[in-house]
């Protein structure tokens, strides 16, 4: 199976964002860090669309706007959750909160 490495270099920024975001969601213990990592993943998708935009007309630009709106809305909801948990537990460390919850 032939793989075009040129594509991998062209889309290196979206790939880096998506990988960093995916890694962060699983490996950060801070809840706000997890939420920010998901936003980073979404940023990767948006930057991928920006790279596509010159060749593909107005659709990728419109999609990137819509994805930004969804990211903003869900990001706000996740932040509200973090604020609520932070106020209740005085920390945003997931392990610490889970430990307190199980006691």
């Amino acid at each position, binding site marked *: *199976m032939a793989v075009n490495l040129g594509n991998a270099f062209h889309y290196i920024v979206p790939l880096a964002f998506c990988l960093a975001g995916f890694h962060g969601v699983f490996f950060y213990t801070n809840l706000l860090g997890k939420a920010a990592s998901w936003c980073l993943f979404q940023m990767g*998708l948006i930057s991928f669309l920006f790279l596509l935009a010159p060749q*593909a007309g107005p659709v990728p630009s*419109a999609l990137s706007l819509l*994805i930004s709106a969804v990211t903003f809305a*869900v990001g706000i*909801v996740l932040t509200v*959750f973090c604020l609520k948990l932070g106020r209740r537990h005085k920390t945003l460390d997931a392990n610490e909160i889970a430990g307190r919850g199980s006691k």
Partner: protein
Amino acid sequence: MNAHLPLLMGFTPLVGAWLALIIGFFSYRLSRWAAYGALLLDFYFISLSLPKLFSEGSWHYSLGGWAPPWGIELVVTPFSAFLACFILLLALAAFYYLGSFGLMAGLLKNRESLGGALLLVLVSSLLTLLWVRDGFTLYLFLEISLVAATGLLVCATRQGWLDGFYFLLGGSLGASILLAGFLFLYSTTGTLHLDDLLAQLFISKNFSITLAAGSLLALSWACLFNFPRPAFFTSLLNQTPPFLLGFLSSVMVRVAAYLLFVLLFLVLNVPGISQPGWLVGLEYLLAVFFLADFIRAARQKDFLHSVAFLSTAQLGFLFIGFISGNKSALAGTLMELLGQMLVTGGLFMAVGVLSLKPTGAHPFSKLTGLGRHDFWMGLTLIVFTFSIVGVPPTAGFFGKFYLLQGILENRDWFLFVPAALTLGLNLYSGFRFMWLLYEPRKSVSLNAHIPFSMKAPLMALALAVLGLGLFHQDILRHFIEPALPKAYQNLPVPNVPFLGKQVE
């Protein structure tokens, strides 16, 4: 009005949600009736659409006449309309239990009406997920359904903020991976429309792109398919009211499984591509991983945890059908999917009805002698158990029958052996459960009488499980067969004149 039925079918619960929320500020009782009214009205709209669906097949409806991604195209098929009826039936049952749970758990009335509104938003987004035909709208409504489900979890659970956060984050990451898969396909085909994608991939015959996108589209459901596996959702499982767990695991997870079927077979045309050996091996392992949950379910001492394992374990049968991929196996998978929705929802709701507390432990010992003490409750549980075990004439029997037929047609012994072993184990576990229900001695906690009003929704679900089995021939002919890939439908292929010659 009839011309806009697909729109009305999708968005009636959404309008009902706003109504229920606004009316809830003035009268909680009226708010409840508004929510019931929206769900029943949606049933009515779906019933109105059935004659046209039977006579003309799929119903294509474009919102405002715009093409995606600017506009939304809805395609209602007989199977998706039938599946929508099941979603509404389970939503009615869940909404009914929300009221009694509110009383039992001391839930504030304004939280109850907010919960009702969120349930309606969730129903509306799930129904729309069944009918949208472009990748971006699918992602959008998946996100809406995740936010609504998280809101519902937080609304009905006192300490559910952390679990709600994880559910939303995991689900949203899955949705993002789904979107990544669609964007990947978009970059190579220039379209997001699902039917168009099928055509473009068929023309380009670019199998490596199809496999890569397929892997992303399948991976995206990982979080939902593992809900509510006790290993990942322990705290959520112990704190969330069982009726809500039942609604989410039966409706949301099974809708995700149906969407995976649509993506694999109606968009990527998986049977038409040759897969590398490592991927096939991985698929087999995945099916066995989920089937292994039947062993874990049998070893549980807590009824709720056992039902949670059963919920995820039954997905193994669906994956077996997807892997087999022939007509019998896919027909069995869709039949099994319908049965699983009712059984999973019913069992979770039964846990809630049988427990004296809204949350906490639900040991099996409390069920000792239940069948002798409460005949109808015992019978309802037996019907659900028989469907999981695969005893005729339940829906589960016919689903598994066609599934095994598909495996044997392929002579795939690597799938047949785990499936047969699982059925054997389930037979043993099912009879052990029946023995517990009809033991002569009685649990002390069974002295409390279960009112008929609490049992009625469960009995309706059990009746539906029996109805699916008894009328399986009609369901296969009218709903399931038209939902299969075109190659498996007994359609006369028209001769299309091309360059003066008749070609197929």
